[in-house]
C-alpha cells in the first residue's frame, strides 16, 4: 500500500512540472511584458517610464531563462508572488479565501451526496414505474438549465420575494449560517440532476447481478435487497466518482461565490479574470491541478480500501 502511494506521488511530479511548463508558455510567451503592463495600468495612455516601472516591479523585465527558473521555483514551492492588478500577496489572499470557499463547497458536497443517493434509491426502488420515469425526466430537465438561472431565480424567490435569507454577503463565525443557507440550497439543487441520474444507473447495474438474485431467493424483501446489498455495492462507483473532487472543494465555486459576494477563492478567480490578473490565474490553475492530482490519488486509495477485490500492488 505504502509503496503504491509513493509510486503514485512520484508519478505526479512530471505532471506538475508539465503543468507549470504549460502555464509558463501560456502566460509568458503569448504576451510581451509591455502588453501586460498596458493591460494592467489604469491610465489610458501610459508613458514609457510608467510601463518600465510596472514591468520591473512585477519581475517581467528579466530574461526568459531567469523568468522561467523563477516561475518554476515559485510554483513548485507554492510561492506565488504578488498579484498583477492589486499588488497584494497572492498566498495571503488564498489563505484568507480558503475558509469561506471550503465551508460552502463542502456543505454542498455532503448535502448533495446524501440527497442524490436517497433520490436514486427511491428511483431504483420504484424502477419501471411512472415515479421512476418522472424522476429521470426531471433530472434531464434540471441538467438542461444553466447555472446562472438557478442562482438568479433562487436569489429572486428566496431572497427578494420570500425574504427568507440575505441576497448575499458574508460574515465569519456562527453568523455565517445565515449567509450560507441560500447558496448551499442552490448548489445542491444545481448538481442534483446529473448525479441522481448517474447514481440511479449505478444502482440499476447492480440490480442485475447474481448476488441480488441469490438474496431474493433467500427471501430478503425488496427494501432489504436495496439497502443491504445494492447500496453497498453501488457505493464503489459512487465513491470513485466523488472522491476525486474532495480536495478541490477548497477552491469553491466561481459563479456561486461571485453572485453571493462570498470572499472565497472562486470570487478571487473571477475578479482576476475581470482585471486580467495573470499572476492570480496562474497560481489558481497550478493550485487546482495539485488538488486535483491529490484527489485522483485519494480515489485509487479509497478504491482499494472499500473494495477488497482491488489489489494495488
Amino acid at each position: 500500500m505504502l509503496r503504491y502511494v509513493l509510486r503514485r506521488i512520484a508519478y505526479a511530479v512530471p505532471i506538475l512540472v508539465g503543468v507549470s511548463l504549460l502555464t509558463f508558455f501560456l502566460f509568458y510567451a503569448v504576451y510581451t511584458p509591455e502588453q501586460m503592463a498596458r493591460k494592467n495600468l489604469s491610465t489610458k495612455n501610459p508613458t514609457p517610464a510608467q510601463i518600465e516601472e510596472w514591468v520591473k516591479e512585477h519581475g517581467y523585465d528579466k530574461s526568459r531563462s531567469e523568468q522561467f527558473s523563477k516561475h518554476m521555483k515559485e510554483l513548485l514551492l507554492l510561492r506565488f508572488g504578488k498579484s498583477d492588478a492589486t499588488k497584494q500577496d497572492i498566498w495571503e489572499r488564498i489563505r484568507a479565501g480558503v475558509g469561506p470557499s471550503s465551508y460552502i463547497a463542502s456543505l454542498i458536497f455532503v448535502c448533495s451526496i446524501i440527497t442524490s443517493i436517497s433520490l436514486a434509491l427511491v428511483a431504483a426502488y420504484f424502477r419501471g414505474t411512472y415515479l421512476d420515469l418522472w424522476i429521470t425526466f426531471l433530472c434531464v430537465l434540471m441538467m438542461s438549465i444553466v447555472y446562472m438561472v438557478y442562482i438568479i431565480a433562487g436569489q429572486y424567490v428566496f431572497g427578494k420575494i420570500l425574504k427568507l435569507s440575505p441576497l448575499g454577503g458574508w460574515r465569519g463565525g456562527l453568523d455565517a449560517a445565515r449567509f450560507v443557507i441560500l447558496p448551499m440550497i442552490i448548489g445542491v439543487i444545481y448538481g442534483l440532476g446529473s448525479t441522481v441520474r448517474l447514481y440511479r444507473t449505478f444502482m440499476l447495474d447492480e440490480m442485475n447481478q447474481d448476488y441480488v438474485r441469490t438474496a431474493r431467493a433467500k427471501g430478503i424483501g425488496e427494501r432489504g435487497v436495496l439497502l443491504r446489498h445494492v447500496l453497498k455495492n453501488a457505493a464503489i462507483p459512487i465513491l470513485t466518482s466523488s472522491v476525486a473532487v474532495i480536495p478541490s472543494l477548497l477552491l469553491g465555486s466561481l459563479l456561486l461565490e461571485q453572485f453571493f459576494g462570498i470572499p472565497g477563492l472562486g470570487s478571487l478567480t473571477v475578479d482576476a479574470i475581470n482585471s486580467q490578473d495573470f499572476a492570480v490565474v496562474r497560481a489558481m490553475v497550478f493550485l487546482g491541478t495539485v488538488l486535483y492530482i491529490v484527489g485522483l490519488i485519494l480515489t485509487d486509495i479509497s478504491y482499494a480500501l472499500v473494495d477488497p477485490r482491488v489489489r494495488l500492488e
Partner: protein
Amino acid sequence: MWAWLGAVLQNDWAQNGIAVLVVVALLWAIVRAGREPLWAEAYRRLRRNRVAMISLAVVSLYGIIAVADSIGWRDDKNAPRKTIIDRVFERPQERYYSYPLAATTFGEPKPRPLLAPGKHLLGTDSVGDDIFYRTLKGCRTALIIGGFTSLLVTPLALLFGLRAGDFGKRVVDVIPSVSPVVDYVIEFVYTLQASSPEILLLNALLLVLGPGLLNLCLALGITSWVGLCRLTRGETLKHRDREYVRAARALGASHSRILLRHILPNLMPVVIISVTLSFSGLVLSEAILSYLGIGVEPGVGSWGNMIDSARLELAREPIIWWNLASASTALFILVLAFNIFGDALRDAIDPRLRSS
C-alpha cells in the same frame, strides 16, 4: 493570432459558402448513413419514439435559424451585410425598456411612444434592442460553438484514442512513421490534460487568447478532447482482441489498415452518441464563459451575454423579466432537446447501452 482566418471568415461569400457547405455536408452524411443497415435500423427505432422526433424537430428549427442567420448579402457596396434573420426580424432601436408587445417605453416616469409599437414580440432591453431578435441571434453562436468544437475535437480524440488503445499492449508492428516517443508524448499530454480542473484551464486559456468565437471553440476543444479520447481508447482495447481483428491480421492486413478500416468503423456508433451527448455541455459552457466575460465578444449575439446584462434587472422596481426569461428559455429548450435526442439516439443505436 487568428487574423488571417478572421479575414477569410469576414468575407461575405466565404460566410455564405460555409453555411451552404455545412448544410450540404450534413444532408449528405444523413443520406449516406441511411443506406447502411445499422443506421437505417437505428432510424427506424428512433422514428417510433415520438418525444425524440419532437426534439429532433426543435433542434432542426434552431439549425434553420442559425443557417438563415449565416446567409446574407449587402444592398449596396457600402451598406452593412444583413442576414436573412436581420432582414426579417430586425426592429428599429427604441430608447429604453419596453414590455412585450407594448406601445410605450417601460419603467420611465413619462412613458414615451415606441418607434415600432406592438412589434417587439418579447419587448426591448435597456438600450432599446429587440429581445426576440437578440435571442434569435444567439442560436447561431450556440450552434457554432457546439458544432465547430465537436468537429475540431472528434478527429483529434479519435486519432489519439486509437493510438493510445493500441499502445496499451505492446504490439510488434508499430506504424513505422510513429515512433514510441510520440506515443509517450500522447500519453503524457493526455494525463496532463486530465489532471487539471476544466474550468480553471478554460479560464487561463481564454484569458490569454482573448474572447472570441474561434478562441472559445479552440479552448473548449483543448479542454474537452480528453473525455472522447479516453472513450476511444477503452473501446479500441475492447475490440483489439476480437476475432474479426485477428482474422484481418491473419489475412495480412497492415496494422494501420486494421485500425482505420476495421476497428474505427466499429467505434463510430459509440463516438457519435458521445459527441451528441457532449454537445449540450458545450452550449452550456459557452453561456457560462460569456457570462464571465471571457466567452464571445460583447457585440456578438449570445445567450450568455444576454443573461449577463439581465442579471440585475430582477432587482429593479418594477422588475424586468423578459430579457432573462427569453435568453434562458431559448438556451434551456435547445439543451433539453439535445439531451433527450442524445439519449434516444443511444437507445436506438445500441439498445444494450440503455440506462434502465
